[in-house]
């Protein structure tokens, strides 16, 4: 499946480029023989990780130092729990109603 091939100036430009690249191409043996270059990506990755870790640690340290002092711990009020084993002491309430006197005084006639 060939694309439409009209007299393409684009094709001519690519041909020119191809000639130039062919001239500039390194010899095959040189490419094959050359040892792989040491990868710089590993140290770069290590630096990246170290920098990220330093930033995280810095933020944690700053948040720890800047944090306002915690309020004093107040012990919660002691809750007296009823002991189910001991029966509650019975008592008569001394509470008086504010209108109790109405029950005792004669009603105005």
């Amino acid at each position, binding site marked *: 499946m*060939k694309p439409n091939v009209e007299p*393409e*100036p*684009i094709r001519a430009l690519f041909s*020119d480029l191809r000639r130039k*690249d062919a001239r500039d*191409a390194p010899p*095959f043996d040189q490419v*094959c023989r050359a040892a792989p270059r040491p990868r710089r990506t590993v140290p770069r990755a290590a630096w990246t990780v170290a920098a990220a870790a330093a930033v995280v640690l810095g933020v944690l340290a700053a948040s720890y130092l800047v944090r306002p002092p915690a309020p004093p711990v107040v012990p919660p009020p002691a809750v007296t729990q009823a002991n189910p084993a001991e029966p509650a002491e019975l008592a008569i309430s001394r509470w008086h109603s504010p209108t109790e006197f109405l029950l005792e005084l004669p009603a105005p006639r």
Partner: protein
Amino acid sequence: MDRSQLRTHLEGLHRESYGWALCCCRRDAAQAEEVLQRVYLAVLEGKAKYRGGASPKTWLFAIIRRTAADERRRNWLRGLRLGRYFLRNGPAGAEERPEERIDRDERRALFLVALDKLPARQREVLQLVFYHDLSLSEAAEAMDVSVGSARTHYDRAKQALREKLKGTVLDETQRGAGTDPGALLGPEA
């Protein structure tokens, strides 16, 4: 294929492979050479095996493309350097010059700048079809896309490149092509 056959095969395709690696590496020669080196090592050490199907050339081109993409991801900072290269060597002031003064190197530089502005897929399909004389289906295999997608990229790329080169390189080239197809390539052609 044994190692010596593989080596012979790679050597036969070396210049083509270099051109394709240059395209995949956005014309960064050092990076292209590094990519080729990794590809050759992978092929010769048997890490990349040809299992039939596509043509050996298409298979090799697909490996180069993948390796270049991998390399690009690892060395993304190089893109910034290349951008600076184009800023330095780009077509600054080209519009002010009369067309007749645009020589072959300038035309090529303008063409490369226009090519570089195309999206990667469009640039690749143009390179595979025009530079490496692959068919669209072969280009699609090398690019790992469907034939329909390759055709779409191809049509859009031609259109975009024509628009980018209109009034400068393309007119000059067309005039040359109209009279003598070899003339536009200069004395080296």
